[in-house]
């Protein structure tokens, strides 16, 4: 009887259009963190390298139930987890943002590299999870998932923004105008998605890799304070004096609570 009531309307109904048709996105599970292209500095100058470790046992990263987003879930063979504490062998700690917090002569200015940092949203996670940019450097936000992500920047010194990318392969370029460690990026549609970006006025920063190592290059001679930031373990500092083009090592150890 329902059909009968509306058969008149059914008669009017002439046009149908198939509006579906996104191919499934293939992208392999993101295994390795893409190396963040650090700022372009001259080879001259000193280098600070080191390893980031932590003591104690790392907290378990919560599993993410992606069943509501089949397209994301399909990109993983095992249950994906959040990336709060990504530990490597021998308690190496990755995703630590290391930067020179003091020692760079005031008044010295650096130009931002022309290359953009790519922030990819794939499998309902951010890649990279932690990264640094220079003030004014382009960040190209890319959506590799065929579904809506919004990118909300929670910043204090920079103008907050909230943009969305409903389709696959949409890109959006943003920049930050003021130094800020860290600007939090989050997706409100997928509450587990977080990324952190350190915005610096100089190119002297790095993010620790899977083995916990980092390297800051091109420092002129001087005494520097370096600060390491981790989303769960807080910050640690170290002081390093550079003379000439030497390479100094500064290992930093966090304590897992």
């Amino acid at each position, binding site marked *: 009887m*329902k*059909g009968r*009531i*509306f058969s008149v*309307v*059914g008669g009017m109904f002439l046009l149908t259009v198939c509006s579906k048709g996104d191919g499934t996105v293939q992208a392999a599970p993101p295994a390795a963190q893409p190396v963040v292209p650090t700022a372009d500095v001259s080879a001259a100058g000193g280098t600070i390298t080191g390893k980031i470790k932590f003591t104690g046992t790392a907290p378990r990263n*919560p*599993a993410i*139930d992606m*069943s*509501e987003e089949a397209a994301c879930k399909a990109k993983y063979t095992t*249950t994906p987890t959040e990336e709060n504490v990504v530990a490597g062998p021998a308690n190496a700690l990755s995703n630590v943002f290391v930067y020179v917090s003091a020692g760079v002569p005031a008044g010295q200015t650096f130009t931002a590299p022309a290359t953009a940092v790519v922030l990819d949203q794939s499998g309902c996670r951010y890649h990279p999870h932690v990264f640094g940019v220079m003030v004014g450097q382009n960040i190209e936000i890319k959506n590799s998932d065929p*579904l*809506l992500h*919004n990118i909300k920047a929670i910043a204090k010194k920079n103008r907050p923004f*909230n943009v*969305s990318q409903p389709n696959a392969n949409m890109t959006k370029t943003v920049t930050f105008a003021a130094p800020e460690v860290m600007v939090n990026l989050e997706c*409100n*549609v997928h*509450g587990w998605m977080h990324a952190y970006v350190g915005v610096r006025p100089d190119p002297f920063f790095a993010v620790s890799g899977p083995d916990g190592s980092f390297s800051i290059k091109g420092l002129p001679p001087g005494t520097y304070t370096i600060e390491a930031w981790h989303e769960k373990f807080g910050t640690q500092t170290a002081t390093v004096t550079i003379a000439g083009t030497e390479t100094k090592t500064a290992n930093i150890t966090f304590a897992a609570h």
Partner: protein
Amino acid sequence: MRWWLPDAGSTFAGPIDALFLAILIITGIALVVVEVGLVTFVIKYRARPGRKAFYTHGSTRAEVIWTAIPAVTMVALGLISNHYWVLIKDKKSIPPNAYHVGVHGKQFEWQVTYPGPDGKLGTSDDFTVRNQLHVTVNEPVAVELSSEDVIHSLFVPEFRLKQDAVPGMHIIAWFQATKTGEFEIGCAELCGMGHYKMRARVFVHTPDDYKAWVAQQAAGGSE
């Protein structure tokens, strides 16, 4: 193609759908009377040479008739509607044995808090699951709605369930699912750019399945 209300999935669907049909019939009759009347008049009383309109200022009897009929119909409709309205939305109508779950709206997700094994909300064994409302079939469920930021509206079409979640307010909506399966939840109040993406699901389980699901959740998640 769907030409009617969504399939019935809760005890509310019966009376609401019946009332919908009743109103459709009443308004359908009124619509036919008006539209057929208009078409008839347009054809029958079209201007022709030598005709003159009938000079009248109206008829009190006609006015009384078409005042009284709609008035009586509307009052009757109001009384019947109110009966079901009270049964569905009144605070006193929430069954005392209802199973309480908390639903917290947030830009742009629903956080569903379950009472855990002890069956009580607000205790330490509560656990929260994102975008999934698991309930037992044929058991009244009271949804304690709250909101983090803006107004959201919990909408389950199959259950004929809709209730705004207002920040700063604690609102209870209840329903009783009548069939097992998976249904969709939408947000029916504009809540920002991700409004359309506040999609969540209701899973209606048999009592045993539900117990098993709770046990699994209490054991530490959905791995």
